[in-house]
């Protein structure tokens, strides 16, 4: 579905990613690990740019509109499915049928009681779940998620990743929790200073192998 050959990304002259050679097959569940600044977010951005049409995003900063309700933020995943006029009406007064659709998603992430709360008032974990809900509502073939569960508790984190893995045929999670990476992904890619230093099926790896990436 995607292959990058010797890809390179520069920011203002500094190289952020070097010699990226990467092929992703349909159906793969990939974990992207590495220390902060190792280039995980940059790699996700690069992949998004190659496949924007079929991809749903959960960015690290969530990308929510603070002053809109949870409902509207989730609805935004499918803005392009409707005319701008329909969207405008829905902004002014939510359509019942859409609210039901969105509520079904919110139940999955346990946010149904926050449906019409303004995002500004949510906690960090609730915001992340809103962003996850948006990607679930949007759907698509590929999910790119940058630390999507870093602020929710362990139990819920596992459930959310499970849900995303079933909803999207191909997933790529940037994670810092090595346990979660091994238990929810079939392939692990390790980044260090903008280079891929590890690319193995997760069954060949132990938590200790991954921890090594975080030490210099």
């Amino acid at each position: 579905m995607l292959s990058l050959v010797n890809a390179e990304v520069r920011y203002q002259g500094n190289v952020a990613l070097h010699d990226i050679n990467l092929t992703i097959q349909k159906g793969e569940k990939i974990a992207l690990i590495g220390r902060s600044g190792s280039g995980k977010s940059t790699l996700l951005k690069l992949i998004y740019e190659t496949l924007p049409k079929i991809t749903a995003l959960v960015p690290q900063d969530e990308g929510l509109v603070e002053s809109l309700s949870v409902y509207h933020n989730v609805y935004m995943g499918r803005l392009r499915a409707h005319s701008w006029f329909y969207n405008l009406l829905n902004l002014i007064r939510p359509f019942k049928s859409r609210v039901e659709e969105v509520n079904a998603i919110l139940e999955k992430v346990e946010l149904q009681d926050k449906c019409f709360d303004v995002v500004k008032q949510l906690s960090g974990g609730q915001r992340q779940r809103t962003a996850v809900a948006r990607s679930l509502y949007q759907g698509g073939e590929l999910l790119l998620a940058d630390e999507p569960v870093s602020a929710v508790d362990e139990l819920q984190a596992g459930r959310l990743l499970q849900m995303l893995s079933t909803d999207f045929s191909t997933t790529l999670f940037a994670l810092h929790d090595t346990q979660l990476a091994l238990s929810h992904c079939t392939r692990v890619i390790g980044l260090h200073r903008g280079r891929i230093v590890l690319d193995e099926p997760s069954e060949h790896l132990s938590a200790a192998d991954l921890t090594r990436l975080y030490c210099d």
Partner: protein
Amino acid sequence: MTKPSFQHSRRWTLSWCFVAIAAVCLLFADIRITTYDPWTELGRLFSGLLNLSTVGLDDLGFTLLQTVAFALLGVTLGSVCGLSLALIFHWRWVRIMCALLRSVHEIFWALIFLQFFGLHPLTGLLALAIPYTATFAKIYAEILEEGDLSALNVLAHGTGNISSFFYARVPDLYQHFKTYTAYRMECGLRSSAILGFIGLPTLGFSLSTSFMEGLYGQVWVLLILFYVLIATMRYWLRPSLLPLYLIASVFIVNNDTELSMTNISRFFTHDIVPAPIRNGESLASFWQWLSDLLMTQALPGIMNTLVLSQIALVASAICTLLLFPLVSKQFFGRFPRSVGHFFLVIMRSTPEYLLAYILLLMWGPSMLPAIVALALHNGAIIGHLVGRYSDELVMRQDASFGLNRYNYEVLPRVYGQFLAFLFYRWEVIVRETAILGILGVATLGFYIDSAIQEIRIDRAVVLIIITALLNLAIDMVSRRVRFWLRVKTDLSIR
């Protein structure tokens, strides 16, 4: 558990309240085009652009120099006095005095000073310096309040007030002071130009003469020079050159009008004393005089001012929401944005008084020219600020485009700031609305101007005080509203 239901936000409800008020005002407003053929005249105005002419503008250089000189002297004097007042701004009476001085428009100050200084340069100088002092005092005080105090706190005990102020406060805040003062200098240029409309030898005077004679080629020369003057301000207005400019300005504004002590004392002891008291009549007749003035002039004046300004406020809001995408990186590339910027800069640099004057000549007397002028000018100012604010927004990589982007991504994020800017301008809009009365719309300025024409200074002074109180009231309501919405403005709009 009850199911959560959708509720609109405070700002949504508030916005519609204001729209409803404006709609009711529209029922009472006098809105029509009274001239027989308004568009031909507008066409003639714009065709003036094609045959620019300086014929008959012998004193062009003189007019421009006067405009700049009055602005430089007035704003500098205001900034120096304002800085001193800012240091004692925590005294309640200073705050109240400044609020009162600020709420009287520079044109009203000029109308008062004309009565006893005549065309002496002091008229223009004080008319600018007084309201600017009061504004500077308030904003400088706010800058000082928001500044970092850590350097001040570690100074050795016993360091003098003045030394500690200039060592520990000024260096950090200098940039803020400078930016704000430069912005006010631009306002000062506009104010100074407008003072020409009531007789001072600045740009407005030449403009109104050219307009009266229908010499649109001249009008455009004056306007273009004025825009160039403002647009190039940061190149010619260097702090190091300021002393030189100020000395030159003193010579430029100087004329041979002499101050007459008799006029001054007559003004304070005779002219402004209410007529019944002046003539030694009974207290009852003074009440009669006052209630007459209130019922037949102040009240209709206030009503019209409020009606016009509420419509203008909502019209400005609509203008802003339409205009800001033109200059926002969220919507347009470099080239379309520069076209947008050009239009906004022109609208921003043209004082609303001048815009209203032009539209009134084209469309005839009604509230329409004033509303359109206020909406365009304020819409351009706030649109510029909202556009700049929206440039700072960080969008998701997969954010939508076009109208969806406007409605879902950008508008919700900028709306709070937009309302803050708008309500900050509210008081300015009301103050300007009162002034536009001088052009013939029956707002407070109309009654003030008529009283002065009839040399009934006592009435004019009472009406000016009433106008000031109205402005103070609006300022208070606006502050309440902003507090209720929990929005804050930054320095650039004040």
